[in-house]
């Protein structure tokens, strides 16, 4: 069996009693754009710092092309990195900043000049060689940082929330640039962010971090369509959770009983849950429909409409279930119900069986 290009193998890092990351296990393919997504303190940055060599893991290994890199100091890892803060060398011009990695490697002058020119061209800053970092915008500085991190053709490029200091419009612009650069260079990228939209826009695959562990790894559509845990379901996309009791669990499917006695049978169940335990049903507002008639058993619930807000291309409907939990439904413009639905209407929400998920509640 061939070893994966980059293997993060059971990384655990503790600071005193605090566990920063635990059993982080991930295989990354060559040329892949992998994003670590999670709230602050979820261990995503710690994992990145261990890759960069700024911190040593308490346990576990990191292998690049089958070889452990943990014994290699940062400056010999050959890894590229773009930081959250601006880290250009303020006393050096843009050209010298980009040339820095080549100079410390004692590359010949002609090679340096050619590579710097190419790297600056890659980030669309041709002709900026003489400019000082202090005279550049934040977006430009991060692009120079990107050029500096790519100029020596690193096997892996780490990006630690590189856009968090920029405003929204600029962020989107540079996200597009990063995508283009990834496609153009084919470099393997590990990208850390807490912004789900950014993660979905950029990544081939996303590893969702929570409390030091990876909750799920998958493509954006996979995470959205079949979240493995409550946390992932909540973090990616909008969702509503209805709490009930597990009346039956069988072959990965559950029957839920809600407070008012409503039963919902045959819903896909994630994680371990025993009969009698509490569980939550997750429904996404844009994946459920509103109808006069009840749907098939297990994919429909009666509700009372509480509020309707017109939002242009869709309407947001707030409804309440028989036992009083709120539920949100998004009706796209042109939906037959749009216009006719009003407060107090007794209707049914319906969904495709694969769009509902049950998670055990701790």
């Amino acid at each position, binding site marked *: 069996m061939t070893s994966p290009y980059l293997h993060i193998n059971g990384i655990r890092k503790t600071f005193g009693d605090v566990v920063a990351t635990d059993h982080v296990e991930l295989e990354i393919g060559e040329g892949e754009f992998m994003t670590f997504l999670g709230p602050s303190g979820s261990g995503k940055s710690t994992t990145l710092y261990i890759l960069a*060599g700024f911190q040593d893991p308490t346990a576990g290994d990191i292998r690049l092309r089958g070889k452990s890199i943990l014994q290699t100091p940062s*400056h010999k890892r050959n890894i590229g*990195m773009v930081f959250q803060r601006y880290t250009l*060398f303020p006393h050096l011009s843009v050209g010298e900043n980009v040339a820095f*990695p080549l100079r*410390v490697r004692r590359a010949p002058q002609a090679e340096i000049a050619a590579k710097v020119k190419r790297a600056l061209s890659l980030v669309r800053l041709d002709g900026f060689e003489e400019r000082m970092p202090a005279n550049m915008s934040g977006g430009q500085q991060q692009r120079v940082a990107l050029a500096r*991190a790519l100029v020596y053709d690193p096997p892996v490029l780490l990006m630690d929330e590189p856009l968090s200091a920029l405003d929204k419009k600029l962020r989107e612009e540079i996200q597009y640039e990063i995508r283009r650069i990834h496609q153009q260079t084919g470099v393997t990228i590990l990208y850390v962010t807490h912004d789900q939209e950014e993660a979905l826009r950029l990544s081939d695959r996303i590893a969702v971090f929570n409390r030091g562990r990876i909750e799920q790894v998958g493509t954006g559509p996979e995470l959205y369509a079949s979240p493995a845990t409550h946390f992932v379901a909540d973090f990616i996309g909008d969702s509503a959770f209805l709490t009930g009791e597990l009346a039956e669990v069988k072959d990965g499917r559950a029957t839920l009983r809600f407070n008012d006695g409503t039963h919902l049978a045959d819903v896909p169940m994630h994680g371990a849950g025993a009969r009698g335990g509490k569980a939550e049903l997750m429904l996404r507002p844009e994946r459920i429909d509103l109808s006069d008639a009840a749907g098939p058993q297990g994919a429909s619930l009666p509700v009372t409409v509480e509020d309707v807000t017109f939002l242009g291309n869709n309407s947001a409907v707030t409804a309440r279930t028989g036992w009083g939990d709120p539920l949100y439904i998004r009706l796209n413009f042109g939906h037959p119900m749009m216009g006719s639905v009003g407060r107090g209407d007794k209707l049914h929400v319906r969904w495709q069986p694969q769009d509902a998920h049950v998670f055990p509640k701790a």
Partner: protein
Amino acid sequence: MLSFLTPARRGSGLGMAMPALLLLLAFFVIPVAALLSRSVTEPVPGLQNYETLLGSATYLRIFFNTFLVSGLVTLITALIAFPVAWALAIMPPRMAGVIFAVILLSMWTNLLARTYAWMVLLQQTGLVNRMLMATGIIDQPIQLTNNLVGVTIGMVYIMLPFMILPLYGVIKKIDPAILQAAALCGATKSQALRRVLLPLATPGIASGALMVFVMSLGYFVTPSLLGGTANMMLAELIVQQVQSLLNWGMGGAAAFILLVVTLALYALQLRLFEGKAR
């Protein structure tokens, strides 16, 4: 009501600085000018005081001593202060606070007391000689007082805070992530030091060095206590000329040369570093 705080009035802050300026004029500018004017009027009008000072081997020797010691003190102070300032900048703030307190406390301790302490430590049977002999580095006690070695040691110790503080100021402002970036770019520790840390700390080194060098040029207490009469420095010469020989002309000339050198160095620093910061 508070119109004197508005920007329009701030330009004319000269009025508020007036008392301080008058004080400086009365107690600094006028006396110094008087002393300097005596250097070209006593004993007779003319530049003979300067001719004597710059023309005789004895006096040139004193200038040489002064610049040599000041230069060495500046260099050694910088070499010691840099790692100290660096350590202070990266250690936990509470620990740095304790060390700062120690540094300041030593600064606030009476200068004479500290210099006499060094005399005790550096004498033939002093702690330093005994320790060097105990570790086998030397067999015979070496002469550490009454010469420029003693002066240099004593002055390095006194000048250290003046180098550590400005250096700490610039190093503290350097984002540690910049050094992490340098490391990932492939820079070894010494390359990161030479190519990133030192250039970024240069303004602090320069202002500390100027301070230490200029203070050393005119320093009196340490050279006179640890140096001995055979190795006189400029401040000692001025004191000797004015106090013992009542030769105000020569004293004034020596003071004037000191002032010119100081101002020239200051101008150089302004030119090299202040202009760049804009």
